[in-house]
């Protein structure tokens, strides 16, 4: 027997924290995700209520930062990548329902076989020379983003014995304030791996967890081309951003 936890061990740890409601974000201290053990602060965060804070502004991006091709992860090879082509679109808003306009959205993901174009991903699934695995775009005037990509495969990882991540797309987002910065992951509806995954389950409130799952929307599917998914994103952030209506 090795020290490697079994899925049952991880299930027990997940169950211990399950249903802690009222938390929008994962607790950084989440033992079932073993990499978190030495990487969460033990001291409480220091709360800043300074309306002059630098963090209430943030970096800006524009047409020089993104090309027209960057939102399509299936272009750039010599042939079509393997797998199911999908379109993922949605609106980025702040908590006051105000659209986040002209801001940078970045994604990265495994290919259809569940393999990342990263040298540290060495599990025996094929790389796809026709799939870049990353994309970026700017939100439009309604806060909308859109990517054309391939439905990613599930992949194994070494958190515990027989650990598999549900299919997901990593997202990186900017708001108008650095304090709204967000990195998260989008999941696909109905994935049977959800209950086994400590990263998704680290969001212990079921309603919050549901907000990480895209919806299939038939009207977004393009005939003979792609299946459509919608995933709207709400950036968390300080109440002070409310008063930045005129922004820059």
């Amino acid at each position: 027997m090795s020290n490697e936890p079994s899925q049952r061990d991880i299930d027990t740890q997940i169950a211990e924290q399950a249903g802690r409601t009222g938390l929008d974000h994962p607790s950084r201290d989440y033992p079932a995700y073993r990499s978190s053990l030495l990487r969460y602060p033990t001291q409480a965060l220091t709360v800043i209520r300074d309306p002059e804070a630098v963090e209430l502004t943030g970096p800006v991006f524009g047409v020089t930062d993104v090309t027209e091709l960057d939102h399509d992860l299936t272009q750039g090879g010599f042939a079509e990548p393997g797998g199911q082509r999908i379109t993922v679109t949605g609106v980025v808003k702040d908590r006051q329902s105000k659209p986040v306009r002209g801001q940078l959205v970045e994604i990265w993901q495994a290919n259809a076989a569940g393999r990342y174009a990263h040298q540290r991903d060495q599990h025996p699934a094929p790389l796809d020379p026709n799939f870049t695995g990353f994309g970026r775009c700017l939100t439009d005037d309604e806060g909308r983003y859109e990517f054309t990509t391939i439905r990613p495969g599930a992949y194994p990882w070494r958190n515990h014995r027989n650990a598999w991540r549900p299919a997901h797309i990593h997202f990186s987002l900017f708001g108008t304030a650095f304090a709204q910065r967000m990195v998260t992951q989008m999941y696909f509806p109905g994935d049977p791996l959800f209950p086994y995954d400590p990263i998704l389950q680290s969001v212990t409130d079921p309603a919050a967890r549901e907000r990480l799952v895209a919806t299939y929307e038939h009207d977004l599917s393009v005939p003979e081309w792609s299946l459509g998914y919608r995933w709207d994103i709400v950036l968390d952030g300080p109440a002070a951003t409310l008063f930045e209506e005129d922004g820059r």
Partner: protein
Amino acid sequence: MTGLPPTPAQTVGPFFGYALPFTGGGDIVPISHPDAITVHGYVFDGAGQPIPDALVEIWQADRDGGLTGAPGSLRHDPVDGSVVGRDHVEFTGFARVPTDADGHWAVRTVPPGAHSANATPYLAVAVFARGLLHHLYTRVYLPEHATALSADPALSGLPADRLSTMVAAAERDRRYRFDIRLQGEGETVFLAFE
């Protein structure tokens, strides 16, 4: 805070390296800039081990305290579309650097100006890592502002030894050391904004 419920955070994971870092991501100004400083350090875990898969982002005011920034951190090559980085004409105020295999990161920039009257200048920092389920914020204050910082009302609740984790140490040649300790002894002060 009320309003729409936010989308939960998730870890950046181990595989962001081919997607998020970009050419010149740590060079807010070029090293040849007459006012350039280097801010560098390590990211450590709770066992004191360097973290080789963290990502550090900086956002800061320009020399005059201006916080408008500018686009163009990720300028593209017009021919092949690859990211070639900024042109150093505009000051974008934004840096993004992954830690190295030894947990080390470095940015080159200019000292930020005061962003409002009597404000103590600083670099705003966001830290992402595999194993970190929700990113963290801290700040880099330069040592010449340590006295002003200790009187800063926004941080007045912190004991001196905690506050000092946000003050970089002066090294030679306009170089400043700033280590980030995610957990344990000397744990960095991390911030939440309300």
